[in-house]
Structure formats: structure tokens, C-alpha cells
């Protein structure tokens, strides 16, 4: 996948059927990519800021977050 194709996609995906709205991914994102919607479910508000550190995916207790692409992409 080229970087151009990658940038056209959302790097972070939230599976809303698995998310329990704990806010961990939002609180610990170093770039404030994620925000809470009215139901406290995480939404990808600033995808262009994502550095693909994957901390949201690694710390998600509900297996709801997936980060695509390599770090620094």
C-alpha cells in the first residue's frame, strides 16, 4: 500500500459494536486523534494527526480499535 493510498484512508478504525465507551483510547492518544461522541463512543476526529503509534489499539480493553499502516506513516 502506498503512502498516498494510506493517507486517503482513516488510519484508526473503531468497531462500534465492541466499544464500551471507557475512553482509554481517547485519554492516552498522544496526538488527540480521537474524541467521544454523545454516547462516549470513540470517534476518529483528526485522522491526519495519527502517527500510528498503535497505543489506542494496544490499550483498548474491548478489541474495538484497529490501526492500519506502519508507524510514522
Amino acid at each position, binding site marked *: 500500500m502506498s503512502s498516498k493510498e494510506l493517507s486517503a484512508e482513516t488510519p484508526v478504525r473503531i*468497531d462500534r*459494536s*465492541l466499544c*464500551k*465507551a*471507557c*475512553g*482509554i483510547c481517547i*485519554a*492516552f492518544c498522544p496526538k488527540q486523534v480521537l474524541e467521544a461522541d454523545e454516547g462516549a463512543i470513540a470517534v476518529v476526529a483528526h485522522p491526519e494527526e495519527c502517527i500510528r503509534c498503535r*497505543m489506542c*489499539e*494496544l*490499550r*483498548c*480493553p*474491548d*478489541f*474495538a480499535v*484497529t*490501526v492500519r499502516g506502519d508507524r510514522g506513516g
Partner: protein
Amino acid sequence: MNDKLKAYFRTDHLPHIWCPGCGNGIVTAAIVRAIDDLGWSKDDTVFVSGIGCSSRAPGYLDFNTLHTTHGRALVFATGVKVARPDLNVIVITGDGDASAIGGNHLIHAARRNIDITTICFNNNIYGMTGGQYSPLSPTDSFASTAPYGNADRTFDLCRLVEAAGASYVARGTTYHVTPLTNMIRRGLEKKGFSFVEAMTACPVYFGRRNKLPTGVDLLNWQRDNAVPVSRAAKMEPEELAGKIVIGTFLDVEMPEYTETYERLLKEHAADRSGE
């Protein structure tokens, strides 16, 4: 969940039963990532658990899984490993399951140095049954059975297992999830008894009674109180009060139980056939 990890889960059982902000899913995913790193086959790997919130984890994992009685996961796991030493055997247990109900089994599995990796999800409380204090609830912390604060001292479970004879002992946290995953991988690779204590969060029964009511609060608590083992070695006991010492405490090579057993059977094959 990314597609690579999805292959290791019984996805039709998700979402899981754990509360919002509970760290058990973080540890479960770390275990799966460690297994994926090692390239272990699902068919050659067995998960055994006891009773408690953490012990629900194998139910979500698409491996050979065995959900047993309270405190006895290591007993069943020992049976599996002795019968089939070729299998990778992993025990998932909680702080109460491992240190109270199953405390005796824990020290004897370590003493035998049987090739089982035990991951203890330490949330400092009996979560499933309503928040009673466990042997790992901090002194003075509050629990449903300790409304004035917990009078008990805690076990340092890593030191206990090390003293009992394990080959690999480490402690990590769900905040420090990458080092935790590496510890689990090292424990899985290790021939002999491996023990990884994973500090995890129970916002509902531990956190809410201890001014840490959310998963985010408890991860911040882990971050702010974790001390690497190298730094802890230079600190006074008073400075370490209330801290979580993280890192690898022990990583040694020692004779493994099923190998010793196999050797004895071979050495005495003639005696046995003459029976």
C-alpha cells in the same frame, strides 16, 4: 480488532462480559499478540483457567481451552502437561484465584518447575463476587468487606513464586502494555515454570471505592506508581510503599519437571517391563 488477531478469537462470543474500563481485555490481547509473535499453533496450545473475572478469558480464545474450578487451574494444567508435554500450556488466573484459593497449587507448580506459563491478572480485588478484598488488595485500601480499610498486608506474589522455585518471574501493567507483551512472550518461550503478574484495572469494585473510578484513572495510577526493578533496587522500603515494581525479577535455566519425569521413566524402563 485487526484481522491477524481475529483468527485467535471466538469472535461470535464478543463483546466480552468485562465492564467498561476493565483491563482484562488488554492483558488478553497482549497474550494473543505474544503467541502470534512466536507463531504458535492454536491446536498445540492449551489455556486453562480457574474462577473469577480473568478466568473468563479463555472462553473468548479459539484454542484448546479448559475453564476449571476455583484455584485449581494449575492442577488441571499440570495434568495436561504431564500427559502431553509436547503441548504449550498457559494458565490464566486472577489475584484471588492464584494467591488465596489456589495459593498452595501455585507454590508447588513453581517448586516442580513444570513448563507452564501462568499469567496472573491482578486487579487487587475479587471483582466477580462483589468486591471483597484479596491477598493482593493494598493495605488500607477499601473493599466491600473492608469498609474501614484493609488491615491485611499483601503478598508480593512475584517474590513468593521466585522463592518457590520458578524459572521466570516478571510483573507488568496494562499501562505499560508493550513491555507486558514482551514479558509474556519471554515467559511463554521459557522452558520451566513462568509467572507474569499483570496489573490490571477493576474500576467498578476496586477503583470506585478507592477514588479511581474509571479505567483511565487506574491506568494513570499504574503509570504514576510503577517503578522499574532497576530503580527500585536503589530505593528504601519506605519509598517503595504503595509503588508497583515492574520488570523481570528472575530468568534462569533449571531442570524442568516433565523432562525429569521422562528421564526417570527411561532409566527404569527395564524395571517397569519386569513387573
